[in-house]
């Protein structure tokens, strides 16, 4: 049975999915018009999955009566879209599907960019698998990099479902910075301003991976190099046993060290760069409803924020925000200091969907502390919620008493905003 919502408050529900995002925003219509629901992301990272996704989608269906006015996929990372299972979501009645412009199949710039991202992610993923297979160096850096790349692959089903409008009549929009909707269809009274992602060349250049790397791939039972260059013809090759090499040959350990230095570090760096690039394609949406302002920045990283922070009026926007979804699970470079400091101390609440697995340095402690100060404690972390039957889910700091406006559910937190 769909739940009822008081006509004088907005509800933001943050589901605890593990390392991922799933937010349901419910808006009461004036008079007795009922409730409209917007789903912002639905996904969990394969390595940070605590196994609640099925129950989450069931709950969404229940409270919305399987009717969603808008579904937003902020960007094409697993931890934001893996939950969009067509078998389940095709049963919903969906008004609109929003994706960033970088997903638009009719935009040549987007297609080119996307192709590059996908090809690179596949290569890197193969490479890390092959490297793990041959027992290569599995440093913390490599592990973190391969987890970041895993986030980009195997998203095909979800993406197809989104692009098909979940097999229904949903209207699909590809959004970019500067888009403005005064009255979103189906949701009278809601206006939306899109702050990111930008489309300018400078921004795009940041997403262009450099050329010239070679990758490993698993072929049957051995790792082989792909797109490898042979810089010289074979006649120049020389065996280390040759007399001329007496003072030049390197011990095996030394060769290994050099290989490690030149090969794996570089691809780790590339993996992180790619991850950042995709995070930066995030839709940054600013909702205004009944005089309240809510900011959903997806996983926007510094580059995406910087583009609109530089514009006139950004300070006014920030100081008016009443609710903030903390970007990129509270990681270090997803909430610029400038932005956080311009928000009105004590006048907004925040939610962080996060956990310290698979990356122990997320969320960033100093950022969490500053958020606490800026919101005057009106902030919750999804991993603070203890869930029955899931004793092994990573635990965030326990919360003795929830701040006012917040309510605990079975596997979610609600935040209510009075209108």
């Amino acid at each position, binding site marked *: 049975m769909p739940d009822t919502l008081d006509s004088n408050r907005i509800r933001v529900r943050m589901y605890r999915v593990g390392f991922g995002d799933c937010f349901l925003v419910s808006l009461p219509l004036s008079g007795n018009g009922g409730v409209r629901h917007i789903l912002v992301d639905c996904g969990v990272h394969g390595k940070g999955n605590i196994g609640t996704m099925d129950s989450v989608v069931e709950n969404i269906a229940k409270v919305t009566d399987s009717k969603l006015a808008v579904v937003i996929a902020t960007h094409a990372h697993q931890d934001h879209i893996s939950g969009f299972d067509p078998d389940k979501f095709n049963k919903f009645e969906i008004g609109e599907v929003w994706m960033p412009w970088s997903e638009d199949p009719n935009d040549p710039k987007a297609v080119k960019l996307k192709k590059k991202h996908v090809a690179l992610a596949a290569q890197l993923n193969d490479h890390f698998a092959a490297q793990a297979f041959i027992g290569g160096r599995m440093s913390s850096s490599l592990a973190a990099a391969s*987890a970041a790349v895993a986030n980009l692959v195997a998203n095909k089903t979800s993406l197809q479902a989104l692009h098909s409008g979940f097999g229904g009549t949903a209207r699909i929009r590809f959004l970019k910075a500067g888009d403005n909707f005064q009255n979103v269809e189906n949701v009278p009274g809601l206006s939306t301003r899109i702050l990111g992602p930008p489309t300018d060349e400078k921004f795009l250049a940041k997403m262009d991976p450099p050329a010239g*790397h070679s990758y490993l791939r698993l072929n049957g039972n051995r790792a082989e190099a792909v797109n490898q260059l042979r810089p010289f013809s074979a006649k120049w090759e020389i065996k280390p046993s040759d007399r001329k090499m007496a003072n030049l040959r390197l011990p095996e350990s030394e060769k290994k060290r050099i290989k490690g230095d030149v090969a794996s570090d570089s691809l780790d760096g590339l993996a992180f760069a790619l991850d950042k690039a995709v995070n930066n394609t995030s839709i940054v949406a600013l909702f205004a409803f009944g005089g309240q302002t809510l900011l959903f920045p997806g996983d926007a990283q510094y580059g995406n924020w910087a583009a609109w922070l530089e514009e006139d009026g950004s300070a006014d926007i920030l100081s008016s925000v009443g609710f903030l979804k903390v970007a990129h699970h509270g990681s270090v470079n997803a909430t610029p200091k400038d932005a956080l400091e311009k928000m009105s101390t004590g006048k907004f609440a925040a939610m962080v969907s996060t956990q310290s697995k698979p*990356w122990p340095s997320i969320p960033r402690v100093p950022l969490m502390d500053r958020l606490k100060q800026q919101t005057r404690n009106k902030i919750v972390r999804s991993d603070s919620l203890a869930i029955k039957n899931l004793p092994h889910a990573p635990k965030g700091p326990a919360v003795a008493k929830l701040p006012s406006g917040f309510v605990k559910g079975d596997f979610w937190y609600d935040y209510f905003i009075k209108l």
Partner: protein
Amino acid sequence: MPNNTRNDAPTKRPLKAYAFDPSQGRNLGNYMTINVRNEQLAPGPVGRYLCVIDYDASNDRYYEPVDLDDPAVLLWGGLDPSESDPCFHQQMVYAVASETIGRFEFALGRMAKWGFRGGRKTDPNRSRLRIFPHAMQEANAYYSRDLRGLIFGYFPASETDAGDSLPGQTVFTCLSHDIVVHETTHALIDGQRRFFMEPTGPDTPAFHEGFADIVALFQHFSYKEALVEMIQKTGGLIYRLNVAPEVAPADGGPVIASELSTSNPLVQLAKQFGEAMGMRAALRQALGTRPNPRDLERLFEPHDRGAILVAAVFDAFFSVYVRKTRDLMRIARASGAASGPDDLHPDLANRLAKEASKIAGHFANICIRALDYCPPIDIRFGDFLRALITADYDLVPDDRYEYRAAFIEAFRLRGIRPEGVVSYSEEALRWCPPEQMTGISPPRCQGLDFDLFSLPTPEQQKKNATILSLFGKNNAAALGLTPGVPVEAHSFHPVHRVGPDGRFRVEIVAELMRQTQVPLDPKDKKSVKFTFRGGTTIVLDRHGQVRYAIQKKLGKDNDQNERLRRQREYYYQMDATSGLTTYLGPFPLDGRPMNFNIIHRGY
């Protein structure tokens, strides 16, 4: 004919190299000969300082090493330039790196040293800088203290936009003269100063990149043929980025090659590399854009920020060049020569080239010598300006050609402001003796043991380190060292120099260092810690009297410690822009030398 007798060992060895890189073809004297100091070489080549090991880690194989003493090679003055012959590549990296080492030794007045230690006892090359000319398939090259060497990559040029290279052709970073000079410079600086490479603020990595570019660019002005040709083409205005076409194109636009305007390679770095990456231009330029004092607040990527320093130095250089050649130009005009780039008289071009190359040599020397007058850690652009002024004043007190005035003006235009100086006057900028800074005059530092004509032995090193650290401890206040923390002495260098007036000077440069562990976030009890260092570079005269004590104070961990606050802020900023720290946290920063591998990749 030089007057060699049969018994004289040849002092120079001629070796061929590209003056720029293969993409310049045979233009502009691109096929040049470098006369490196003659030394005994084993196949590799392996010499006193360098050891070229052609191991390709991406393909796990070795390429045939060149034997430069092979009579067939000797008789030709070295192998001819070739992209497909790895032996020529080895010859070229050896020649260019040796040339760069020679430049440093000449300017610093002492023998070069490397900054790495270790290597197995059994490794015959443990004291040499290892050069791997084809180490990896990647568009990158870097110096690694860990690997005790220079790593050069090769990569396929862009398929869509490769500039003067063929799309997809293999581009070798070790064949770019500029890149080899740049990386060798990183290694040489690391050998001078133990902690110079620690990234402590936006200026430190930028300084390293900028300085290496400065050395590489000044090198261009020693290529006589290219210089004369560019002077002719630019009418003497060699700082111009673009060169007018040989024939003015007709109204319909250029039709033949001679009607195309070209870029000026003298003021550009790594043209082929930049173009092959699809950048449509050289990697970097000496003078990028108009000087803007706000750039320092805006540019933080090491190469972009370093470009500000490069531009300041080249602005000063070109200003002096213009001033010193004005008379020549006037004489030429008085005799009826056109003032434009057309038909500069070859004699005039030769004279201008001579001036340009002489001044460039002076500037390169001043810049390199300034390293001895830099603080031991946490260098900022303003410190470098003070070091430049002091270094030059010390050797050439009479600034007849106004080199120093040109430096000051160029730095001022770019908003580079040294801390704690009251004005941009030369006097204010010069470092001062310790008694003027702290009010206390330290005694002489006596008993230092060194020999001008050889590197200190390990025993001498040890003895000197003990004397110096004790000297630092006993005179902490006078030398600006925070009392109560142990002093370590590093990088002891005896120096001998001859000024233009023929004065011979002997000096000693050493670093006295202190360090402490501080939390990254002082408000967070569980915060990671990092090593915060302070220290003083002391310059002693031959009697052991302290002439300069150039300091970066350690201080206490409190709100007044501006330097510590800045370093913390920098670490946070690095977090905010690095993809790596998103997932790994800030721990890789702690007290490590900069990772040129990552900086050079330039994400």
